[in-house]
């Protein structure tokens, strides 16, 4: 259920950017980075996106998701480790709590690929 809401949040945020452009561009690809220590399941997000983009300015847009592992840094041990999500988060060596998360909390729209040639033949004459 929550991927529906995450998708809605994503679309609203991209819409903000889209509205701010002088000429509404055609967005071809949205590149997301999604950490493993978030509430988002990429497969469900993809599915929700395919459903929700229909009939919107993103109707032909592809969603590309890059997943980022959860990495924490233990200060007493001075080393990074990958907590086992759902099982164990404290440092496997010294059992210090997971305090310093170095990656895995990302929910980021990294970049957009877009074109401005809504009428391609006219905008870019084949003169090269």
């Amino acid at each position, binding site marked *: *259920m*929550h991927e*529906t*809401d*995450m998708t809605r*949040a*994503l679309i*609203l*945020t991209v*819409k*903000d*950017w889209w509205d701010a452009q002088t000429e509404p*561009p055609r967005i*071809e690809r949205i590149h*997301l980075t*999604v950490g493993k*220590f*978030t*509430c*988002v399941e990429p497969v469900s997000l993809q599915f929700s996106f395919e459903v929700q983009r229909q009939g919107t300015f993103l109707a032909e847009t592809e969603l590309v998701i890059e997943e980022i592992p959860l990495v924490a840094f233990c200060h007493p041990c001075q080393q990074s480790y990958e907590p086992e*999500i*759902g*099982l*164990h*988060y*404290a440092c496997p060596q010294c059992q210090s*709590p*997971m*305090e310093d998360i170095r990656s895995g909390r990302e*929910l*980021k*729209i*990294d*970049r*957009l*690929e*877009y*074109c*401005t*040639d809504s009428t*391609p033949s006219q905008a*870019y004459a*084949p003169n*090269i």
Partner: protein
Amino acid sequence: MHQTFDAALGINLLHANQRGADHNRAHFDQWGITCFNLMSSPGAGKTALLEKTLAALSQDLKIAVIEGDMTTELDAERLRQYGVPVMAINTGRACHLDAKMVAGGLHQLAQEYVPAEFDLVLVENVGNLVCPAEFEVGEHAKVALLSLTEGEDKPLKYPIMFQEADCLLITKLDLAPYLDIDLARIEANVRQINPDVTLIPVSTKTGEGLDCWFSWVRSQVASQTTLRLEARPLEAKPDALIASPH
């Protein structure tokens, strides 16, 4: 010819919601209101806790409630008996409150009451341990509830909620004798992900632990007020800033 451009955005997926949350928080701050976001799985005891809280604190503090519920007004009706404004927000199919929904509640508060007279807004989120933790609504503190009947492993399985919480109430303490559950284990699991969280075991049935919760609430309201007074230049009167949130 077809030319593709690249726009490096680097913005959060929840940016639009975050903006709304910041907007709500600005209103809370202008009005001098402290806001808590109460979150838990369905039935952990949010409404029961609100009932006790309103009964105990609504003499000293002026409180309003924003009540998120998927379809009914049942919880809102329970709370209206305590004589405080309760803004019910039906989320429809959504599984959490977002900033925009809470803005709707604030709008209602601003229309029907004088918001600057309030000290505390308690937001009861929709029962769900997953996404409410990622959608800020403009709160100053997140309060999570975990009932004893849910099991020791919930902080491990739903870590974001427990990591984001400023205060965690372990509820239904009176049921401990009937359950095979170890409070120390729950605490150890929580501390793995959130070592600094304020942890308060309570029972709304026997009243155990509630005083501790009430003092936490009072101290949060007091420290938020101090922060606001420090942040705001003296000449800016709160009244001048009152506008309905949109």
